[in-house]
């Protein structure tokens, strides 16, 4: 046990400061807490690695008030990765339907933006926006964690999208 405690003590605090944009009064936003549900819609798992990295001690996303949750029913923000395979089109739509309003959708990675390297395959929908409305996109293959974090923090105060 003491080895474990010594390790914690020696490692110290690694979390890098981030700057969460302050929500303007009277704009709809999520205040200080944001629950995120991730949906992998057929990615190569590269973007997942960077999403997981957001929870390591350097980025410590939870210290900004954002955390990944296990059900869309608890979520404010859906993060979608992958080109949206034809087989994931229906599960993705159902996940959105299960997410309560107000909600936002963030497409992470080149594939989620426009299909990326898998664009125009018979098996993909060429990104998230042809399937469900997207509020914000983070391009990159895969995008580095600080860029994803920036986009997530912006989502705290992201104005509601026009209803389609």
């Amino acid at each position, binding site marked *: 046990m003491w*080895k*474990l405690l010594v*390790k*914690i003590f020696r*490692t110290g605090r*690694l979390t890098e400061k981030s700057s969460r944009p302050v929500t303007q009064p009277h704009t709809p936003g999520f205040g200080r807490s944001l629950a995120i549900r*991730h*949906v*992998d*819609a*057929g*990615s*190569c*798992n*590269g*973007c*997942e*690695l*960077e*999403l*997981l*990295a957001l*929870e*390591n*001690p*350097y980025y410590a996303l939870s210290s900004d008030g954002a955390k*990944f949750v*296990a*059900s*869309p029913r608890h979520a404010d923000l859906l993060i979608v990765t*992958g*080109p949206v*395979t*034809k*087989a*994931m089109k*229906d*599960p*993705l739509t159902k*996940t959105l339907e299960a997410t309560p309003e107000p909600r936002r959708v963030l497409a992470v990675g080149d594939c989620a933006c426009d299909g*990326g*390297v*898998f664009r125009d*395959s*018979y*098996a*993909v929908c060429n990104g998230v926006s042809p399937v469900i409305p997207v509020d914000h996109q983070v391009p990159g*293959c*895969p995008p*580095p964690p600080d860029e994803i974090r920036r986009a997530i923090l912006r989502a705290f105060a992201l104005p509601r999208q026009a209803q389609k």
Partner: protein
Amino acid sequence: MDNDDFSKRFSPGFCLIPREDGIPRAIIPQNSPGSYIEEARTLAASGGRFLGLWAAGDPEPRICTAFLLREGLIVLVLPLNLPEDPQTFPSLSSFLPAADRFERTVRDLFGFVPEGLEDSRPWISQGLWTVPPLASPPGTCIPETPTPDLQEYPFVRVLGPGVHEIPVGPVHAGIIEPGHFRFQVVGEKVLRLEERLGYTHKGVDGLFRGREIAAGARLAARVSGDSTVACSLAFAQAVEQALDFSPAAGVRFMRALLLERERVANHLGDLGALGNDAGLGFGLSQFTRLKEDLLRRNRIHFGARYLFDVIVPGGVRANLDDKAILDLLEENRLLAAEVGDLQKIYDDHGGLQDRFQNTGVLLPEVARRLGAGGVVGRGSAQAWDLRADHGGDPYRRFPPALALAHEGDVAARVRIRFLEIQESLALCRALLEHLPEHSIAEPLPDNPETAEGLGIVEGVRGEVLAWVRLAPGGVIRAAHIQDPSALLWPALEVVVPGNLVADFPLINKSFNLSYSGHDL
């Protein structure tokens, strides 16, 4: 059996030619379904491990089946040119149970019928297309089923008092890839697990057709993101074999270094997640911090955190100066010490070991029958590691020791990962200390005729295999990347029954298989 005996058994002119960049590998064309099944049977009986089966479609329909022997890699190619439609090929599943899902995949995607295969259910296809999507020439529009019924898959049911079913997925409760698991349980105990995959099927084999080599390499790097180096390297080897091009020693060293860095990064991530799944959050924090340090160094010295697109056919897109080598050697020393500390903590932690030991046991005999390799296989006494067995350059100069355990439980797979991190770090150290001068990437020669090549490397999970067929002018006619996950998913189904439902995440993590690499 020595190489001479071995060559005699095969049809005229065949021999396994050693290559500097890896293990000997050969493509053996078969002229009839009879000879195909006979050769496959001989290879399986003489200790060959079945590594995968795939097809190529229009305009040269064929079935390819890969076997790994101690002597090298052999791919049997059966051209399909029967007058009748649909095309048929003999199923290997009667003596190779692992061939089942591969043959179902070929039937789903190409419409070629495996004769003698008992399982008539689809595998990759979810009934989304009215025709097999890869049967038509590239560029053809594939008609979609208007209202596919995704719930129709006939899972095997367990009946009896108190038995109930837990469906999980395709959307999982975490940052994980999509797939469906169907558990049949009594109380807390799992009686049966059945997987339903194919949700991440992106039509990779179809996308390869007609691409230039460089665009094909970008696609190959995205078959499974966490194994991008292994996939890129296998693809590069295949292209280089087809074009009869040998990369310089410096390039081979750099590639081996990148492959080991990928292994270390993944093992660090897995060890952290395994600790966390057993309730030790400390492990997750510590290992993810070490992984992040390594990724940041990758960014600085190789230009990419996960090393996407650093390896290309013809070379590597990175170079190390003396300062960088010193920095990486220092990182290596610190990391080896840190991992050593953490291993002691894991080993001495009673609560952790209680969850790890005797959980998710894959018996050596079962592992052998399923052809499991990689970390999972080595945790169950399957002594296969391309780096230790075959020693292409530079592994021949600095042979890594084979990590092996016999218990086959989660604890064994954890131990293998710890051993392999240390072994990889030692190998990286040797490579850095002896790194020859190298040019970055050389232009590839042209191919006046159709050419075919194979590549195989020991990736994070096991053997990653690539096959490529090039049309004149460096255009890909057909290509396939085979991730070891496809062989290991059936092993997970075997391991889980008898364990508690709550132990499934831990067992699953100890396998850590790729969905994308399986579904393609």
